[in-house]
């Protein structure tokens, strides 16, 4: 099919070609260089689409991958153009680039696009951002009018496959980041986080992200305690919370439900006896400690107190690892969905070849004509074999005459875009695909 040599005498169906690098083939230093800004991408699209061999092109650039997807009439030339572009914008020697690039064509390229869109090829399998990034890349390409029928179809199928993988497998079900894992746990303790009060002790990227995620769950007041009160005030402003002094923490234990701690303190910040003292006054309401600090801020013995739960960074990492395993198991189901979609796309793509369409069209019409002749003849008596043959000859001549012009027209189509569309319409007009 796509890889087969084109028959002589008419324009070959162009090939789908994908060249790129990702987190597996290229180290981060290289990816940083090559990653394209939006203006780079626009310029790249423009320059590539001007080469006569490239008929359609899309450029995808994220922090984990740079990929150029094209429909090409001449694969060798296109590969050269793309490599030149990447090495120029990235300022990298061609030889270095060669070693990290992968090239897929035909079915392999289609499969790759589907896998990337479904997040099966991601560094963090199942992460949802890639689909959005791909949609943005596609949008840019359509704005620049560098896509045509084949890539339009391919990308729409890819988005559809990605949606199926997401809804039919558990690939995105469980948290694989510290902050999400903490929130998932909180939801297993408190049914809803709505109105729950949160205390953030110290600062730190991970803790702040966790608070941000929590804030999206309509939680109650956020208190921020920091050794340097000014820093605490700043943070509190960011979360629309309330800054408190470090020595107020003990009093706050009475009030809050979730405590996220991430200080640089060498000793524990909250001791077991402090918590034990407030349990009764809290009327045994559950208390959830998330300890992101190393060394730990929360005395691990607190976990043994009734209705109190302490999770430290290692516990959370353990959860993430387990969830990652689950995702990989689910990814296997995703691969099956991708396989199915690749077969479907391949069928459509093959139909773009002229000869099969012409043959199928002829078969379809001949079948109808012959069936009708037999049906009519069966109603007459005294029809001889020679009559029958004469009728069939006449019908065959009619089919030939009727199909003469359409066949010629299809075979002589040269502009690939027009050909693809016409073939598609022909197949639909005569319902050839059934």
């Amino acid at each position: 099919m796509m890889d087969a040599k084109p028959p002589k005498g008419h324009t070959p169906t162009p090939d789908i070609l994908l060249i790129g690098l990702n987190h597996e083939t290229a180290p981060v230093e290289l990816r940083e260089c090559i990653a394209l800004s939006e203006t780079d991408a626009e310029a790249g699209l423009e320059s590539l689409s001007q080469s006569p061999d490239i008929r359609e092109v899309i450029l995808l650039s994220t922090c984990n991958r740079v990929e150029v997807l094209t429909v090409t009439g001449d694969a060798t030339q296109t590969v050269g153009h793309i490599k030149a572009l990447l090495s120029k914008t990235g300022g990298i020697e061609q030889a270095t680039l060669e070693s990290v690039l992968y090239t897929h064509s035909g079915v392999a390229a289609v499969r790759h696009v589907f896998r990337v869109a479904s997040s099966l090829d991601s560094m963090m399998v199942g992460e949802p951002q890639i689909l959005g990034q791909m949609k943005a890349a596609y949008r840019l390409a359509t704005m620049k009018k560098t896509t045509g029928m084949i890539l339009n179809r391919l990308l729409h199928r890819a988005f559809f496959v990605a949606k199926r993988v997401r809804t039919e497998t558990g690939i995105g079900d469980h948290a694989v980041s510290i902050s999400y894992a903490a929130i998932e746990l909180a939801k297993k303790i408190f049914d809803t986080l709505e109105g729950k009060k949160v205390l953030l002790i110290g600062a730190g990227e991970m803790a702040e992200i966790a608070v941000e995620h929590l804030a999206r769950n309509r939680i109650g007041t956020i208190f921020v305690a920091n050794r340097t009160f000014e820093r605490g005030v700043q943070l509190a402003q960011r979360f629309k919370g309330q800054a408190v002094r470090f020595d107020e923490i003990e009093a706050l234990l009475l009030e809050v439900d979730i405590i996220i701690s991430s200080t640089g303190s060498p000793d524990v910040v909250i001791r077991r006896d402090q918590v034990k003292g407030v349990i009764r006054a809290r009327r045994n309401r559950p208390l959830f400690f998330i300890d992101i600090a190393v060394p730990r801020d929360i005395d691990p013995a607190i976990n043994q107190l009734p209705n109190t739960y302490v999770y430290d960074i290692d516990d959370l990492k353990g959860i993430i690892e387990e969830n990652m395993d689950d995702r990989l198991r689910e990814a296997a189901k995703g691969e099956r969905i991708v396989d199915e979609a690749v077969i479907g796309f391949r069928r459509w793509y093959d139909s773009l070849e002229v000869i099969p369409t012409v043959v199928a069209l002829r078969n379809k019409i001949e079948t109808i004509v012959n069936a009708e002749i037999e049906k009519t003849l069966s109603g007459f008596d005294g029809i001889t074999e020679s009559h029958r043959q004469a009728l069939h000859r006449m019908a065959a001549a009619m089919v030939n005459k009727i199909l003469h012009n359409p066949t010629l027209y299809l075979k002589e189509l040269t502009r690939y875009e027009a050909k693809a569309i016409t073939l598609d319409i022909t197949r639909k007009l005569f319902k050839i695909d059934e």
Partner: protein
Amino acid sequence: MENLIYAVISLYLLSTACYLAYLFFQKEILHRFGYYILMAGLLCHSISIITIYIRTGLMPVRNLSETLSLSAWAVAVVFIAVRHRFKLKILGIFAAPAALALMIAASQFPRHTGPTKEIFSSFWFIFHVVSVFIGDAAFALACGVGILYLLQELAIKHKARGFFFRRLPSLERLDSAGYACIVVGFTFLTAGLIGGFIYAKSVWGRFWSWDPKEVWSAVTWLVYAALLHERLAVGWRGRRAAILSIIGFAVLLFTFFGVNFFLKGHHGEFTRF
């Protein structure tokens, strides 16, 4: 009548199968089926109980078989109410098998009835029986919720999140559902006991006669009263409340069956076979 009983058993069995399948496969459709099938079973069950009542004019607790059957009925009724109020679908893995087991047990005992007294049709008698059964069923579910709570809390405390962690609802939801079951159970048990006293007064001329059944009922009542008091006074919740609701149910089971079999007393006729 026979056929109706078997229909009830089959429906409860199907419902149990659906709920167990739900536990393993986590498909929404399964617990939904389980729920509707259980409701259908309950409908047949109610018809069979009402039929006996209409035919004889007596409350169907004349032998062990009927008593077990009425318990199954009460469990199903209370479960449907709890499921409706708390969306606690996972509780079906207790309720459906419990109703099923009670019904199967009921079908294994002879259904002939000995001589019955007129009093089986007295208002206070019926009130006493229905209230106590509903209350006991609510306590049974509280025990089920308590077990689920302990499983979930164990998973969270020990950071061993396995089979149950994923499948069980949050601690807070389990805790409040358990609490609601205890409140309902306690209300009905109290009403039922009062009904019993009034009935005793009308039949034997005294409210209290130190019968083992009465003593154990009082013990059961005190256990749950203590649980509720602690909850209201100092906010006893979570693990301790869950354990106490399991202990409470063990005491209740003894009061319900144990007393009749081991200690004798004036409730013996309800469990004869």
